[in-house]
């Protein structure tokens, strides 16, 4: 019983992290029609930057949450810069844009290896959240529950932003029909930069708050990117609800798979994706066919 309960908590936690990662991925895909292959890199860069803030290598040690927010801002600026300086040059050429994000992801991975070395870096759970909460006979780690809370807060905030603000309305218009949005006077190319920065920032933030659970190592980007891909294929592109449900599903499959059939966990993860592709190519909640 305890085993299953813990596994469930872990699954939901991982799902929450994946949601922070894939919400941006999904929005970027919905708006710009390209999979941002640097998304895993943004996650990893965030995690690495976080370790630097917490280790005191800069001469000071930041509070965990302050560090996470600062990192998110930095990664958001990085993402926005990449969109402005590289992707903008290739406006309208989706294939070229995808290939550029792929090239940049390799460069980022190698730069991280150069800057932070090849050894995994473990991150301590933030003070005050190292304990456990008793649920019956089981004890659930407090920090994991906190991540679930953060993910829910972000999900609600993003939903409010998309549904209740002017910016959100413009983004939704851009996702639905970019040309028409341009015609009615929305500066879609400016939205690209904003959404790209937002997505990158979310990924970086997820990297920091995920680092106490996952630890930080070279190849983290390659581990996370396919997960984001699967979530978006499952949930459908450009849909916040789709990312949320997809993330939870993937979180469950990944954790249960790893606990029950560790050798095939990675394979099982992709089965629902294959099913969705065959039965419902637009994803569970997506409007447009992939």
């Amino acid at each position: 019983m305890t085993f299953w309960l813990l596994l469930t908590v872990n699954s939901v936690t991982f799902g929450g992290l994946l949601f922070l990662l894939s919400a941006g991925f999904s929005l970027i895909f919905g708006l710009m029609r390209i999979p941002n292959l640097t998304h895993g890199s943004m996650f990893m860069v965030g995690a690495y930057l976080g370790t630097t803030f917490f280790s005191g290598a800069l001469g000071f040690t930041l509070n965990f949450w302050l560090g996470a927010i600062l990192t998110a801002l930095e990664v958001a600026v990085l993402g926005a810069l990449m969109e402005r300086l590289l992707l903008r040059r290739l406006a309208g050429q989706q294939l070229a844009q995808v290939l550029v994000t792929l090239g940049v992801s390799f460069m980022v991975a190698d730069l991280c290896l150069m800057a932070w070395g090849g050894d995994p870096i473990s991150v301590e759970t933030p003070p005050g959240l190292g304990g456990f909460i008793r649920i019956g006979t089981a004890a659930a780690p407090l920090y994991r529950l906190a991540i679930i809370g953060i993910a829910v807060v972000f999900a609600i905030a993003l939903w409010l932003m998309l549904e209740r603000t002017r910016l959100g309305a413009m983004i939704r218009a851009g996702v639905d029909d970019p040309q028409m949005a341009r015609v009615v006077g929305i500066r879609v190319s400016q939205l690209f930069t904003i959404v790209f920065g937002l997505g990158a920032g979310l990924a970086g933030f997820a990297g920091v708050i995920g680092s106490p659970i996952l630890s930080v190592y070279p190849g983290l980007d390659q581990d996370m990117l396919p997960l984001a891909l699967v979530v978006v294929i499952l949930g459908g592109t450009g849909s916040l609800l789709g990312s949320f449900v997809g993330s939870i599903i993937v979180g469950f499959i990944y954790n249960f798979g790893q606990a029950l059939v560790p050798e095939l966990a990675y394979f099982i993860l992709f089965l629902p994706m294959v099913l969705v592709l065959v039965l419902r190519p637009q994803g569970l909640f997506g409007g447009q066919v992939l």
Partner: protein
Amino acid sequence: MIARRIAIAVAILALIAVPYAITEAYYVNIASQILLYAIFALGLNILVGYAGLVSLGHAGLFGVASYAVASLLVLGYGHTVAILAALVIGLLFTAGFAALSLRATGISFIMITLALGEILWGLAYRWISLTNGDNGVNVSTRPMPFGIALTSAPAFYDMTLIVFVLAVAATAIFVRSPFGAALAGTRDQPRRMNALGFHVWMIRFGAFMFSGLLTAVAGILFVYYNKFISPQTLALPASAEALLMVISGGAGTLLGPIVGAALVVIIKNVVSAYVVRWNFMLGAIFVAIVVFMPEGIVPGVARLSRSAWRAMSGAKKIVQVVEPKP
């Protein structure tokens, strides 16, 4: 036409002469690498260049064939069985890849092939009882076709060259056949081809199978060349490297992938001798080529030499009328 035949004959003679011209085993091995990666790139180019479908999972298919050979040899089967079985297994996986990914085109096709390639990488990496995980599988011997040992570098080069010439010839025939023309049609005007009565999906599937065949052949050559296979061979950077070969040389040309393979293999080996950061270079070259020379080297050079020729022969400049794109 005659000039072309002479050029081909000269090229083949030059390739045969390589092991005699450069006697050092290290460089002969690099030449073998170029040829086997060129076969891989030719296979990928069928999809990228002629079908207009960019695959980012081809290293998975390449690696499946390699692993099939290595695993069967470890199980005690002979080389003939291992090679034939690897071809069959490679084609079966290709069929699976094609069936799933051809539901889409464009960007979605990239995403699906990427995900499928990552599945194969994940299996190779984590299914330790089958693949020995990160430690990889060793292959101790090379086959001896007709009793000729392939242990030395020049002998293996000759073998690779024979397969390479066959692969180029097969690709040339494929591309110029009615099927190749239909394939280019599905790339440029899929709906019109559909209306004309062509089965677009079937044509793409056939192209994917041919691409998978060349990829499997290259994978088999690779495992015998390298005598070792590890999950690294299936990872995303390997797929990206192959795509870089195709795009840098010039997608949709016969010569492009070969030039691209030579370029990437040479840069990789030369650069690796001086710096450890090959992945950084790979990324940087990728970005540079996509931004500055999206057409690739072969079409780029061909365009430059044509205009140079025209300038030298003093012909009038031909003004090209470009129709506006819809």
